[in-house]
């Protein structure tokens, strides 16, 4: 009886959901097309997961979308057309790399803008007038202490 339970647990285990992403039956025969499919899939978001691509996710919807990507590629669509097929239905949300649009211009130009801002600030700081610089003068107490140390010939 125990063995039976075990076997069925094993069967359940192996029949359970997929263990990883792309399954052997999805892989296209044409390696070039398959490579394109993988590349496109890596940039498409799995809509029911938390931040994974359809290439990484084992959700059923991710599998459906992977199959669709491959079907469209086999039908002769270009990469852009395949992606367009999905954005027509799900919007820009499905793209892991945000498209460069009016709404994302701020995002894409930010790195360069931050860098320029940083370099500019650094330049301003480095060109400070000498009048601002110089060591902080000793306070009265510190001056007295210094006298003390010097008079003792360097021994504290």
């Amino acid at each position, binding site marked *: 009886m125990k063995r039976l339970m075990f076997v069925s647990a*094993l069967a359940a285990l*192996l029949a359970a959901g997929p263990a990883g992403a792309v399954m052997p039956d999805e892989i296209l025969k044409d390696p070039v097309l398959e490579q394109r499919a993988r590349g496109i899939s890596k940039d498409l978001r799995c809509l029911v997961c938390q931040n994974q691509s359809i290439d990484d996710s084992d959700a059923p919807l991710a599998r459906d979308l992977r199959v669709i990507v491959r079907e469209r590629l086999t039908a002769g669509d270009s990469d852009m057309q395949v992606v367009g097929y999905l954005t027509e239905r799900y919007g820009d949300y499905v793209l*892991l790399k*945000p498209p460069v649009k009016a709404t994302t211009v701020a995002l894409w130009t*930010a790195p360069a803008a931050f860098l320029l801002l940083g370099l500019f600030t650094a330049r301003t700081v*480095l060109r400070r007038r*000498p009048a601002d610089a110089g060591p902080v003068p000793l306070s009265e107490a510190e001056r007295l202490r210094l006298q003390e140390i010097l008079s003792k010939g360097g021994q*504290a």
Partner: protein
Amino acid sequence: MFTEIGHYALILALAVAAAQAVVPLVGAHRGDRTLMAVGRSAAFAQFLLVCVAFGALLHAYVTSDFSVANVAQNSHTDKPMLYKVSGLWGNHEGSLLLWIAILSGFGAAVAGFGNNLPAALRARTLAVQGMIAVGFTLFILLTSNPFERLDPVPLNGNGLNPLLQDPGLAFHPPFLYLGYVGFSIAFSFAVAALIEGRVDAAWARWVRPWTLAAWVFLTVGIGLGSWWAYYELGWGGWWYWDPVENASFMPWLAGTALLHSAIIVEKRDTLKTWTILLAIIAFSLSLLGTFLVRSGIISSVHSFASDPTRGLFILALLLVTVGGSLVLYALRAPVLKSGGLFSAVSREGSLVLNNVLLATATGTVLLGTLYPLIADALNLGKLSVGAPFFNAVFVPLAVPLAAAMALGPLLAWKRGNLMRALRALRPAVAAGLLVAVGTLVWGGSASPWWAALGTGLAAYLFVGTLTETAERVRLFDVPPAASLHRLVHLPRSAYGLLLSHLGLALVIAGITGSSAWKVESVQTMRVGETVVVAGFAYRLDGVEEARGPNYVSARATFTVTKDGRPYAVMQPEKRLYMQPQRPTTEAAIVTTWLGDLYAVIGDANGPDGFVTRLYFNPLVPWLWAGGIVMVLGGLVSLSDRRHRVGAPARAHAALAVNSVARGA
């Protein structure tokens, strides 16, 4: 009973923290030593009380006391002891208790080891620590109490997510929190300095060891998390730019910048306002991370169950802490007087460049992480910002950073000779070019163009870092014996630099290898069949059932041969945990010098076939090795007495005379 003691201890800790937050501050303002000393006693008392609370919850987990709601929700009698313990911090309430345990621990450490700090600075620092503790302890007691009881008591608990039942992941949160909370010390020091209106070389020297310690812990925490993802998730990926991963990376970037900018404050008595701001930012980013995980505001793999009340409380905590410190900054930063000058082409100049690049990287990652939220709030629609974006913008920043890392240490302080430094870098540049060209030739069309850039950069940085050490020991300029003598007597911070920069070179190589040349083979295999991946032949010998303490599994056996000779036996598993019911994959990994063999057993497919995934992950071991070397570098640097307070008394006076005489 223990549970109630723990609960009560926590309430007491709140009261003590409140005292710690107020009394020393008043004392420092008035110059009253007695009041200032309260800070130390309060810090010790708070630590003790929080330990009692932590111990009480730990006791409940270890004894599987399911009358405690938190234990019932997250534990189970069948779990191995290690995971009963780590289950304590594998959930929202328990992890917060760990947070304040570490917070109070660091406070006690400042109270205990900070005897050479001026009394006022220490008092104010402890007061700020106390304020943070008040905020978090209130949060726990009001919204996330781990000591709530259940009635009737369930027979057994809900168990722990099987993904978390893993040694790597058991230790990942404690190290992360040690890092996050460690930055709170730098933060408290910064706020204390702002209140006092004084930042000088001494302040920088006091802040560095604490920041370095936090940095080391955070590096370990991030490394553990990535390593876990690599061996657990089943396809060899280790970084996804998930919002919560970013939330740990941003404090790390800011912390690295802080470590380097504090050097300038110490050497030149300048860049103070920037360094103070960095200290505030590093901890603020830690708090932001805490907020993002627990508020449900951003969709992430890591999120704890979200609850709007909790989210609002943390947001308030975040805004008060960061807002308060930034208000103080706006008011007091102009008061800080700047010290020395330095030329743009100098060691300080290169550190400034380092800071600019790291700050840009931090800002970019922050914007990318928050952008979906911002766009949605502005009704610009829902969009995703994922790995492709971050990879596209981060790499162009990392390249000049790595380039500057080799050049910077070769420049002199204050005013460096660029030509001389570039000449010294010739071996490094040559090494870089050689390796890059070699990569292009070896890789051919199979290798992406940027792989050569990555390996070339890594080689350049590696040789460049060695060049700096060679210069220090006057290699080839003096007899080898003299060089050796110099090498052995280098200050430890020099070894720290050497190791951490070398470590990063290894990390760059590891990242390049694993991203550019990964070999994957997915197929259905029958028992007895062989598949060849990257020169290794995998023969599937069989799949059998196995059993663990709280799971059953299907275990496959692969015999791997290379060039016909036996190489390894690999046994990947697919497990089904019982409570809760969840399948997980346990990949089999064999590490070689040049890469990892990685095998995964999937589901049965057809009458007698199994889905198998076989990978070769090149240079991934270098990634982990590089991380370890970086951590070692940090630890070695930490052990340098020059950079910690408490230099020996006899040398102290001589140093004092020397520095005064030189006007440094």
